[in-house]
């Protein structure tokens, strides 16, 4: 499915006769991580003169082709790309000095490909992104955001107690083990979302063939009909589900089971506790 979407995207680009490398971001994992939106104050974005309209317009058209697939048509975030209008980097950028390198080099660790464009084209993208940030701040009725400072109403000791006790987190997680430094890797809303359900985490699966041989790997694809994994050497293998027995390591489901057990206070306490793990 991801491949077809990339292929269709390429098709559209070819139809419009652009000579750019295909937007592979659809096939990459979405971008989450250290770069959290943070607070964007209206005064920050307002300082500069507005960009010439023609530049913004050509930037808008180019953004739609190169960037909108992941970042949304209005740069407000999309399928797999963050909301650029709430980006600290965009706020700090002066005429492309920070945005330009990100466009040119991509963010390979986060699934953004490098985009090869001329200086003028980069400038038009920069103009569009800054204009969008300004508009987003002025737009009264759109979706708002969440700042890290909003998420500090809990109590760390109560959070630790929940972690070690009723929450059952200690069954699988350790503050000095897998969660050491978690708050340096994620902050704010992203930390809370990961805590509630780490949607990027891959599960392990063991497939047993009719011969009795079993293979354990990282689950890559599963529907009613096909199970696919990356084996320990990194090679993809798949089978019809009707031909094999398979067992998915379902420990991630512990997160789902907690949804009906948490109080909102538990969640806030856990958040504050996890933020001590830097």
């Amino acid at each position: 499915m991801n491949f077809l979407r990339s292929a269709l995207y390429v098709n559209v680009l070819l139809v419009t006769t652009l000579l750019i490398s295909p937007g592979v971001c659809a096939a990459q994992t979405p971008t989450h991580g250290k770069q959290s939106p943070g607070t964007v104050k209206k005064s920050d974005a307002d300082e500069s003169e507005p960009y010439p309209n023609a530049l913004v317009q050509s930037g808008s058209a180019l953004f739609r082709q190169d960037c909108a697939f992941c970042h949304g048509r209005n740069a407000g975030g999309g399928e797999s790309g963050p909301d650029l209008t709430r980006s600290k980097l965009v706020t700090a950028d002066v005429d492309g000095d920070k945005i330009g390198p990100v466009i040119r080099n991509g963010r390979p660790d986060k699934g953004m490909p490098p985009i090869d464009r001329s200086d003028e084209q980069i400038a038009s993208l920069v103009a569009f992104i800054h204009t969008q940030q300004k508009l987003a701040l002025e737009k009264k009725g759109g979706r708002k955001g969440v700042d890290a400072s909003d998420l500090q109403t809990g109590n760390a000791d109560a959070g630790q107690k929940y972690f070690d006790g009723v929450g059952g987190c200690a069954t699988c997680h350790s503050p000095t083990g897998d969660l050491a430094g978690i708050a340096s890797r994620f902050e704010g809303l992203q930390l809370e979302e990961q805590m509630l359900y780490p949607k990027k985490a891959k599960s392990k699966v063991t497939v047993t063939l009719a011969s009795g041989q079993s293979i354990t790997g990282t689950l890559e694809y599963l529907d009613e009909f096909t199970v696919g994994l990356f084996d320990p050497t990194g090679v993809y293998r798949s089978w019809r589900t009707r031909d094999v027995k398979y067992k998915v390591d379902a420990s991630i489901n512990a997160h789902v089971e907690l949804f009906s057990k948490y109080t909102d206070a538990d969640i806030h306490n856990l958040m504050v506790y996890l933020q001590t793990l830097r």
Partner: protein
Amino acid sequence: MNLRKTVFLITVSALIAMTPSSTMLAQGVDSQMLLHPPADSWPGYHGDYSGRRHSSLTQITPQNVKNLSLAWAFQTDQIASIKSSPLLVDGILYFTVPENIWAVDARSGHQIWHYTYPRSPGDHIGHRGVAMYKGNLFFLSPDAHLVSLEAKDGTVLWNVTVADVTKGYWTTMAPLVVGNHVLIGVSGDFDNLSGYIRSIDPETGATQWQWDSTPPVGTPNQTTGGMTWMTGTYDPDLNLVYWGTGNPTPVLKGSTRPGDDLYTCSIVALNPETGKLVWAFQVSPHDTHDWDGVETPVLVDGEFHGEKRKMLMQSSRNGYFFVLDRTNGKNLLTAPYGPVNWSLGVDAQGRPIPNPAKEPAPDGRLIAPDEAGMTNYRSPSFDSKNGLFIVDAHPSFSIYFAKPADGLYGWAGADYGVWGKGLLEAIDYQTAKIRWTHELGPGVAGAGVLTTDSGLTFTGDAMGNFLALDSSDGKTLWHAGSGSRIVSSPITYELDGRQYVLTSSGGVMFAWALPQA
């Protein structure tokens, strides 16, 4: 003229005279067709006025569906996913994405014409399809214009504005034709706007009447919102149109709109001639989670606890399944059809009671279901044979935020889905017990549901597989991987004595049928 030619002409005329008229002359859509759609038609968004999306066609059966194969595919070659239900009239299909209508030969998948509305402002979130009356199509644009076009070649006949896009309105729905009324609904949640249904004259585009779902903008302590997003249903015997209304605005903040916020999140019954409100039932009083009540109001005649009833059923976005008496709006049953954690139970009228502790808050509240809801615009189906209401459900959890700095306008907050899955549920409408389920995968499956009298359920899963299931137990009998996300509801019809099922995925329309002999 020679003898051979005369004989030929006489033979041909005799054959024409013998063939059922609906397959010979292009008639377009009239009131009779809308009331009693023939097998070789799908003349409106829901197929018929009931919204049950249940077909009497039985050529495709649980026994032979494993042989279902691709008759043809139509590729729109553009990036928007098809969310519309096609119309099938006189052998031609009409379906849409925002700003686009395709007319396609239902026999071959060949394009007859393609209409594009000029690039317009307004939300391009999706498009549900056209309506048809006589030989004309009715099409809504993102910038809230209603356009009438000739079905034969897409020529525009008239274009009227039905809402002000500069204020924040947009339109996506497939209009409903009742008598000589073209009924349209509007959308717009990012501004504090009043929702309404408007009745338009099919010949001229003139407004016949308007029903407002909420008070005028600026009325103190009153809500705005109540957008009329989706196509309603109609009971010709009671002469009532049934329509769902959307959530209030500001969306995630309720402080400026204390009380129930009528008529947001409501199922309303209107007189189609006058637009007068006959009754209303609110599925989500004082909503603060964006849970529209616009899902299909499905009309079912049958028994309820031993009594014959004219019923209306809705699987609502807020996670509750409702059965009402559609003559007067009285509640017969209200029950959750998935995890819900935002209510304090159900009141004496059968309406869920919102829990103030689960309103969006500055530090967030864990809410089940998520903003997308336990279901959304995709159609459910009522299988009369099994007495099952079958819905593509989305058990899910999310966090909702609202703080003073978010203001009191439009969204006024933020919300994030944390986890969800797709789950097809077959609900016994008399008890709300779920008789069978079928897992559809992680995230959300976007396919709607179609059932047929032969005992088949057509839908799709979250991985883009089209599925045919046994309606009695939900077991998979056929599937085909489509390669993209399915975000539309299936239709079926019979053409040339062959039953077709049409499904879409991404920008491609697929026509399925048993192999020709």
